[in-house]
């Protein structure tokens, strides 16, 4: 955190000053470790084993915050007797289908609800359906049977206990390389600092998400924080530190293939043929929770898109919507580019030649397009691959034979346009424009508004049905100034939503209607323009308001700063403790009150119980704080919605030098794989030849650089602070391989070979894992061939394997070989990679087995 989010880290230092204990878990000792109370070196890719150890420690010692757990979680719910755990299936759950490498989830359901989970989870994987749950859980029908004593062998609490019983301190040590005593120090401190009077916070970043089991890493963290009562309370939570100025915003208002604004799903050709199919799949009529209103959100979005053309009679132009048929994600796209299926590509402030996994595949894909539009501040590697890329040197890309037509369009910087960023805690902050962009530089707002205008002009008069969606589009934004810049405030106002009759901006999403009387660009952002005021532009000084600072910017939803803050009060609505009071029920006033905007219906009393047969928000009881979950509870066990299991399980990374010490199942059996000649995955046990790539490597950021380097390697005062690509190794690895400090080394994987200067440092350590010594090395991933400082790109080493829930790639751990000296150049470089592929058995036909246990064939009794 001190490395990549230094200014956020001031709050950790603030907490430390007040006596907080800081634990840092990382494969290498970083600037964060230097300030932590305790540092735990860990083998990259084993966090579920570590966290699972903490879950076991809590459950075995009954250290959970029992009142919180009983009232606010699904711990007491009883699960179907058809469910079979990884304990009994050697690392698989019941329902595994080897043909599709996915689960039939019917056996995972609560008792009596087994008809619920029969979705085609392979299809959900392809559309990254899990991302939808960024704002809410899957629906569940009715109330499952409960055992408030938590003694029933099939209640969630007991199932969890059995599932994690294997994650002993000894096992943690064996899998993660974290010595047992250190693990216990962490488990003790975490549990001692949680409960009624105290809370603990968990902070993670892409070190958790970029794994083939990434979603389950975070799930394990969520289980711990829920068991300990650290959710929805001040000083608690699970804090995702995101790495781009508006990456949260670009998920909420998604430039993502599978989502529409506000986490509405992009329609699927088979499941969402009609408007009703689509809307009902979201709201699930008759089921509980706030998604009951989704018909209004969906209709209002289409109304914002197609304006007057969208009417209740024509299902708000739903027929115009494009449909998904499967995986259309960025990595599938890149492989399709290589295969010649894609004509044109826009790059908007992103540099995949350096920043995405498997840089070579990225560049080869771009070299096989008809046209490419790059919009950036600087001449980045993704714009010059045809000229300066590593493949030009190896002869794989010959400029005179590369047909890709490239348009480089300079972009406006953040001070040359106005608009909002949504930062990591869902806070929208409006930026004022300081000056006009230079020369031809323009904002994306300008570019896309005028591109759209031109497309519509060119299509004017078209009678093609396919062109109606463009021609009927509501695309008349006011513009201003000599550059004819569209008004960002007008767009924000549309995002907020308005009454289509009076044009009045809506006060919030509760005003959304499904009859065409409201248009809302992104329902979760509704309220950002309440009272016709740009709430995101509010800048009341922190000196002039309380510590929650509700009048600085605007947070979704409804300006709530802490989600699920109803959980900061006990079931009766009283603060759990005076020290930790945040939001509570005021019986006199008959409403919820506190420091923050209550994340609960304002006047629903704690004693409210839903009538029989209630659905939608009405079905949420007065003591159910997790209102976006269909049952108002936090889920320790997830009966559906997570594709790789109802509970997290330690799997080895897709590339590992070790056989999984915990189960016969080696790696995530449902991970998304792309067999393709360009994408050779290094062998892992039980496959042969894993010894060809004996070392574990991981990559991350340096404080001094930013992601793929465009915004730092071109900026002199940053470039000089970290002027060269390097690799960090322990003295022990340096001795084993013969590397010297400030000398050269080259790293080889089944995809690429890259070189770097060597920093031999005590900050890295070998680990003793399952009786073996495992060496790890670390690389920054910021470098490329353009800019003031250049170097080989670490991400070139990675192959493409994705998490099944969200299709994020495993680019925080891989295997490689390390050799002293510089890498070969030209065709000799390709020969070296080919030689490694030959030695590792990575032929074009090679397929990594997904199920590595015989239990896969048994498939549970229900299947």
């Amino acid at each position, binding site marked *: 955190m001190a490395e990549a989010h*230094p200014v956020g880290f001031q709050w950790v230092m603030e907490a430390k000053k007040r006596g907080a204990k800081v634990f840092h878990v990382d494969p290498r000792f970083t600037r964060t470790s230097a300030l932590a109370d305790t540092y735990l070196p860990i083998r990259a890719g084993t966090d579920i084993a570590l966290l699972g150890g903490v879950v076991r420690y809590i459950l075995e010692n009954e250290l959970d915050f029992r009142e919180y757990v009983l009232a606010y979680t699904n711990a007491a719910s009883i699960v179907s007797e058809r469910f079979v755990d990884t304990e009994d299936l050697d690392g698989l759950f019941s329902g595994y289908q080897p043909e599709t490498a996915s689960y039939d989830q019917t056996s995972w359901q609560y008792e009596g609800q087994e008809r619920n989970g029969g979705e085609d989870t392979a299809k959900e994987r392809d559309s990254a359906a899990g991302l939808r749950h960024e704002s809410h859980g899957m629906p569940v029908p009715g109330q499952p049977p409960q055992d408030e004593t938590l003694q029933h062998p099939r209640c969630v609490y007991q199932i969890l206990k059995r599932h994690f019983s294997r994650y002993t301190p000894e096992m943690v040590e064996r899998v993660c390389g974290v010595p047992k005593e250190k693990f216990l120090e962490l488990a003790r401190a975490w549990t001692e600092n949680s409960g009624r009077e105290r809370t603990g916070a968990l902070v993670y970043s892409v070190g958790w998400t970029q794994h083939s089991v990434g979603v389950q890493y975070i799930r394990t963290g969520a289980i711990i924080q829920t068991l300990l009562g650290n959710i929805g309370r001040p000083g608690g939570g699970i804090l995702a530190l995101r790495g781009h100025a508006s990456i949260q915003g670009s998920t909420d208002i998604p430039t993502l293939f599978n989502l529409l604004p506000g986490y509405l799903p992009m329609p699927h050709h088979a499941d969402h043929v009609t408007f009703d199919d689509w809307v009902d799949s979201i709201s699930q009529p008759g089921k509980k929770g706030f998604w009951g209103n989704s018909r209004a959100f969906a209709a209002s979005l289409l109304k914002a898109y197609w304006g007057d053309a969208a009417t209740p009679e024509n299902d708000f132009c739903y027929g115009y919507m494009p449909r998904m048929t499967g995986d259309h994600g960025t990595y599938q796209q890149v492989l399709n580019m290589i295969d010649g299926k894609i004509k044109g590509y826009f790059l908007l402030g992103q540099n995949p030649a350096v920043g995405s996994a498997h840089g070579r595949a990225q560049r080869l894909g771009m070299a096989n397009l008809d046209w490419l539009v790059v919009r950036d501040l600087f001449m980045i590697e993704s714009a010059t691959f045809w000229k300066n890329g590593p493949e030009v040197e190896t002869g794989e890309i010959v400029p005179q034979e590369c047909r890709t037509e490239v348009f480089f369009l300079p972009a406006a910087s953040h001070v040359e346009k106005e608009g909002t960023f949504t930062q990591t805690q869902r806070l929208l902050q409006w930026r004022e424009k300081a000056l006009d962009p230079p020369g031809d530089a323009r904002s994306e707002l300008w570019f896309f508004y005028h591109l759209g205008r031109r497309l519509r002009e060119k299509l004017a008069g078209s009678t093609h049905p396919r062109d109606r969606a463009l021609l009927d589009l509501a695309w008349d934004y006011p513009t201003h100034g000599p550059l004819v810049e569209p008004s960002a405030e007008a767009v924000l106002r549309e995002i907020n939503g308005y009454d289509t009759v009076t044009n009045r901006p809506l006060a919030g999403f509760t005003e959304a209607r499904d009859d065409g009387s409201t248009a809302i660009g992104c329902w979760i952002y509704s309220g950002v323009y309440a009272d016709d005021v740009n709430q995101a532009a509010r800048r009341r000084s922190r000196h002039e308001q309380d510590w929650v600072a509700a009048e600085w910017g605007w947070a979704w939803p409804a300006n709530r700063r802490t989600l699920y803050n109803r959980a900061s009060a006990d079931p009766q609505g009283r603060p759990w403790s005076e020290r930790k009071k945040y939001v509570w029920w005021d019986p006199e006033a008959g409403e919820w009150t506190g420091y923050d905007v209550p994340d609960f219906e304002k006047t629903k009393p704690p004693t409210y119980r839903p009538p029989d047969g209630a659905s939608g928000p009405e079905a949420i009881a007065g003591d159910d704080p997790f209102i976006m979950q269909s049952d108002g509870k936090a889920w320790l066990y997830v009966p559906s919605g997570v594709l790789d299991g109802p509970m997290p399980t330690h799997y080895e990374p897709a590339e590992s030098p070790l056989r999984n010490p915990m189960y016969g199942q080696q790696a995530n059996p449902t991970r998304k794989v792309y067999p393709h000649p360009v994408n050779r995955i290094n062998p892992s046990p039980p496959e042969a030849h894993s010894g060809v790539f004996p070392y574990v490597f991981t990559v991350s950021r340096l404080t001094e650089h930013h992601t793929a380097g465009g915004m730092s390697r071109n900026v002199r005062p940053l470039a*000089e602070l970290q002027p060269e690509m390097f690799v960090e190794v322990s003295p022990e690895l340096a*001795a084993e391989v013969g590397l010297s400090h400030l000398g050269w080394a080259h790293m080889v994987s089944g995809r690429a070979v890259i070189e770097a200067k060597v920093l031999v440092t005590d900050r890295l350590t070998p680990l003793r894992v399952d009786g073996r010594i495992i060496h790890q090395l670390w690389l920054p991933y910021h470098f490329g061939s353009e800019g003031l400082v250049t170097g080989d790109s670490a991400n070139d080493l990675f192959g493409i394997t994705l998490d099944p829930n969200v299709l994020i790639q495993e680019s925080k751990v891989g295997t490689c070989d390390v050799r002293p000296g510089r890498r070969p150049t030209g065709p000799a470089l390709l020969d070296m990679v080919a030689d490694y592929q030959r030695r590792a058995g990575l032929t074009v036909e090679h397929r990594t087995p997904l199920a590595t246990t015989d239990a896969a064939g048994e498939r549970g009794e229900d299947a």
Partner: protein
Amino acid sequence: MPDANSLYGPLDPAPDAGWADAPPRMGFFTDTSVCIGCKACEVACKEWNDVPASGLDLLGMSYDNTGALTANSWRHVAFIEQPRPAGHRTPPFAGNPTDGPVSAAAAAVAAGTGNDTGTDPGVPPGDPAAAARMAAGPEFLGMPGAQPPGRGTGAAERTDFRWLMMSNVCKHCTHAACLDVCPTGALFRTEFGTVVVQEDICNGCGYCISACPYGVIDQRKGDGRAWKCTLCYDRLGAGQTPACAQACPTESIMYGELDELRERAAARVATLHERGVPEARLYGHDPDDGVGGDGAFFLLLDEPEVYGLPPDPVVTTRDLPRMWRRAGLAALTMAAAAVAAFVGGSS
């Protein structure tokens, strides 16, 4: 003859330099125990003061690629990797299968690296043996690369480790030799008690460079003039905080009235001692030290040498009054002799 105290001992320097109604003396207190080594100070300083480029070399001195305070780097963050216990409750590498430490060896190799900073003398070439001592590890005897680091040192496994970071800056001494030797009046004492080189006056004579007991002052090549931290004199005049202190994410760099900072520093040392960090100590805070106390002082977690700071700096002009007395005496003697000769001659 000036008051000897103007050149040595405790003093409030601004009034002494003729600033009637001077505001309180302002300075920096840099608490290295909360420094995260982010280098925001280096960048913020360069941005505000338009400080030019200082070279693009990987120095291998941990994460320090700046190397030293130069005319083109007015803040410099030092990084020291040490196989020594820190505030960690459990040694960072306890229980890991580690061999001997390498910090000293790496520091020794790094000491051989140079960096063209575009300034003179710039980053001085290091001494490998000194570097090894600096990192407080075992003496490094082999040539770089001749012996793989971490092998053959005879040391047991490494368990303790700490990573020290410290943002260094001009000390704005109470008795600033640079200022005292400046023949043009380019270096002057401001009303805030700080020491500033005036770029419109400096003629590049370089006397200040050898006068500085900390090795802070340096000349810019091509330009020839001396440049260093001004404690953002222009910002101070507008009532603003210096750029580095304003940016510092963890308040490692604190700016304020020197008296108040000294109180804060004393309290911080006491707190750290209570929390089991006995090695915490102040550096440059003492008005009775060899430079009369620094306007920019530090809380360190090790001996000053470890951070590349002189252990006991003394203002190089301390002996000036005594020298002046002797010189005066000699002149008087000479004059007397001349008079005697003249008188004698005439008799």
